[in-house]
């Protein structure tokens, strides 16, 4: 099983797992909340707009995990100490047989033209009132005047 997160915290694209699956010609299932092993096959639960789909797939396969999967376990001190002794394998593009022109910005098929912080042009109008009823009435009136209601 090749397990990926559903999307990275920078670009929020959510495509790496599927791209790897396609490049390796492997079956995939994305945005999962559960994985179960049964013998040679895997049953997963995929989060979709109106519920969950059960999907059965063989190994090897690519899976992407959503936040519904659950909380990560928190390591204890001993485990943190042990982690320091785990071997970290560092790979360069050359180790993977890739040319510099195929990786990073040079190899990207998507080009970024700008990156900015959106500004909210909304000025909030706080509905005042001495009682909950006054505030509720004020809100209805404001929504009516703004033709939202």
């Amino acid at each position, binding site marked *: 099983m090749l397990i990926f997160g559903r999307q990275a915290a920078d670009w929020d694209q959510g495509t790496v797992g599927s791209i790897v699956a396609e490049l390796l010609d492997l079956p995939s299932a994305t945005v999962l909340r559960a994985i179960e092993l049964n013998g040679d096959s895997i049953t997963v639960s995929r989060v979709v707009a109106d519920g969950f789909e059960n999907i059965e797939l063989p190994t090897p396969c690519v899976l992407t995990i959503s936040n519904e999967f659950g909380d990560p376990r928190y390591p204890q001190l001993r485990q943190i100490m042990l982690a320091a002794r785990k071997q970290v394998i560092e790979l360069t593009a050359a180790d993977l047989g890739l040319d510099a022109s195929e990786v990073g910005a040079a190899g990207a098929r998507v080009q970024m033209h700008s990156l900015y912080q959106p500004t909210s042009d909304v000025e909030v109008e706080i509905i005042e009132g001495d009682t909950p009823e006054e*505030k509720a009435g004020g809100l209805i009136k404001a929504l009516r005047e703004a033709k939202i209601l």
Partner: protein
Amino acid sequence: MSSILVIGETDDNGLTAPTREMLGAATRLSAELGGDVALALIGSGLADAAAAAGPAGADSVYSADADSLATYQTDSYLPVALGIVEQDGPSVVLLAQSSMGRDLAPRLATRLGSAAIMDSLGLEIDGDRVKATRSCYGGNARQVVTVQTDPQVITVRPKSQAPLVADDSRSAEIISVDVAEPTLRARTTGKEQAETEGVRLEDAEIVVSGGRGLGGPEAFSDLERLAGVLSAAVGSSRAACDLGWYPPSQQVGLTGTVVSPTLYLAIAISGASQHMAGCGGSKNIVAINKDPDAPIFGFARFGIVDDYKKVLPAIESAFAAALD
């Protein structure tokens, strides 16, 4: 051959709203880009939806209609979508940012030797490229990007584009696509339908949403009652879903559903960027929060600074009286 191919979706009502929105966007973009707009429909029982495509903006419709395509499965849809793209040869392929689109688009783009831009909010033509504006960094930033290879595969966020007013005098040529029996590696064996009553979150004109500040799952029944008065859908922040207070299917946010209703009532929601990525496109946000410094007030048009427990019953009766 078209300039823009929309890979659409259907439901019991025919073409889905995001499909109509993409046809609207494709019509607008193709006016600058030149060329036609084609729609690809993959599914079963597509005749009515295919007939609605012309009035919604398509010049031609590829219809891949087979029992084996009744539900979306990566392994059955991908070869069909690939075949249609290769037959049509578009320079731009649009899909909805939906359960199907987010699964299909990256695989399709990679198979075509190109790349996908996901969840675009804005689309503009720049030469022969489509410049897409999209949200990133958990909703905190925007980027403008183009796909440099062809075809340019782009998924479109629901409600970010305007559909056309249906023009019944228009019709689209329907091209029937032969479907081979699919070879399934991953196989969908069943579905658990989320228990959603009333209005669907993504379709709702009004959404009533609650967050961690509600203090417990019981308060969601108060929200459901208010939603009933307003014919609204009920949403939840991720924090409240993760606490098990409300089903994940109702989560509004970066990793949940993205909604853009006319009115979004945020009740006891702080307004974290994770959440705002899901509701920031709402036309009007009303925030109720006892913390006057809650970030949600920075996005809201109207706000009430108070304990929701005190004001919610009054708001429910006021709405009931106003809408009576």
